């Protein structure tokens, strides 16, 4: 692999993982020698004209927002945080509270639309948190944070209005729908 191909891979990897990586980790991931990795990193550092820059402290490297965009990012973040979570946010939150803990795909199933963006917002605002899934260690479950419940004035989610009946209704609908999906031979299982 030449250093340009290596640079592309390193950039893609850093972007996808979203955390700092050590040189040792990079060498291992690429199956490349350190001197090759250094050349590739130099290529990436030299790219200074975009909105994303490579930050290198000599030990770990990380992708960051370019200083030229920092101010704007800050402004937009603030705006986003001051906004309501909206209808989608309330629905996802209701699913998590009344039927949770749930995995992302279960939330998608209940809402009938993809919820990844919505959950990201809820996570960032500290309204829900991820816990590990006892059934599958690769995935997570979402549950309401204690701060959220406290703000709603309940010690436990089952103190919420109609908690049991809403939960029951949702469960019945889900079961019925899944059963029906199995009966219909026209659909490949998702």
């Amino acid at each position, binding site marked *: 692999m030449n250093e340009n191909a290596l640079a592309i891979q390193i950039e*893609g990897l850093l*972007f*996808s993982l*979203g*955390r700092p990586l050590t040189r040792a980790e990079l060498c291992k991931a690429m199956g490349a020698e350190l001197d090759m990795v250094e050349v590739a990193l130099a290529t990436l550092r030299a790219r200074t004209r975009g909105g994303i820059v490579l930050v290198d402290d000599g030990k770990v490297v*990380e*992708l*960051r*927002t370019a200083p030229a965009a920092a101010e704007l990012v800050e402004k937009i*973040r603030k705006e986003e*945080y001051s906004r*309501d*979570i909206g*209808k989608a946010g*309330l*629905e996802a*939150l*209701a*699913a998590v*509270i*009344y039927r949770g803990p749930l*995995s*992302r*795909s279960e939330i998608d199933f*209940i*809402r*009938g639309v993809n919820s*990844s963006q919505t959950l990201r917002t809820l996570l*960032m*605002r*500290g*309204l829900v948190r991820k816990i590990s899934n006892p059934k*599958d260690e690769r*995935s997570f479950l979402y549950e309401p*944070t204690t*701060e*959220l419940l406290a*703000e*709603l004035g*309940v010690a436990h989610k089952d103190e*919420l*209005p*109609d908690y049991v009946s*809403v939960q029951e*209704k*949702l469960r019945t*609908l*889900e079961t*019925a*729908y899944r059963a*029906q*999906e*199995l009966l*219909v*031979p*026209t*659909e*490949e*299982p*998702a």
Partner: protein
Amino acid sequence: MWEMQTRPHVKTEVFEGPLELLLELIEKRKLHISDVSLAAVCDEYIARISAHTELPVGETAEFVTLAATLLLIKSRSLLPTLALSEEESRDIKELEYRLALYQLIKDAARSVGEATKSPALYEGSAPAPEPMFLFDASITKESLLGAAQTLIVGFPKSLVLPKVAVKKIVSIEEMITQMAARVSSAFRLSFKEFAGMNKQASAHARHEIIISFLALLELVKQGIIKANQGEHFSDIVLESDSVSVPSYE
């Protein structure tokens, strides 16, 4: 990004819908989509759907409606004098169009399927901002309950049947009976027309009509026999009576 879902695998049908079956029959014969090819595959289409005791849920009406159009096309190929109503010729044109459209989309779906095997472009992970708690006043016990109720109401209760199709014919047998009646009346009509025409010409035309119609009846019977219900045989007897009409002369 997608999580695995483990569900019992459902054995799927060889064909999912009527257009798919029809296209398969035409492509198997390496034919182009036209009224000629549609007439050619009519018998097999009916045989195939008749052999299926259970058609895919909710699609039965679509299968049968399409069979009716096919029978009409076949009838016309056997009975060239059969005059089509505006609606009937529109149905035929529409079927040919839908089939051509479906053929294109089906091929495109194959390309899309191939593309899913190419390297995906993966999501990035934004650098995580510091943990915080940002409440929003719109989150209340009431608004959450309301949102939960929206989820309940929005949940698909059952598969919605296509409204138009439901209004149409419900069973294959019933449809064939109706078609037989339709063709038979067209035959009587053309017989009356011929009766008023030049003697020689009409004798020749009548001869052709009888042969065509017998062939058509054979086809209709093939479709009905599977149902082995006496009442449908009586329909055929009725049609045979009308066939015997010209021999009174």
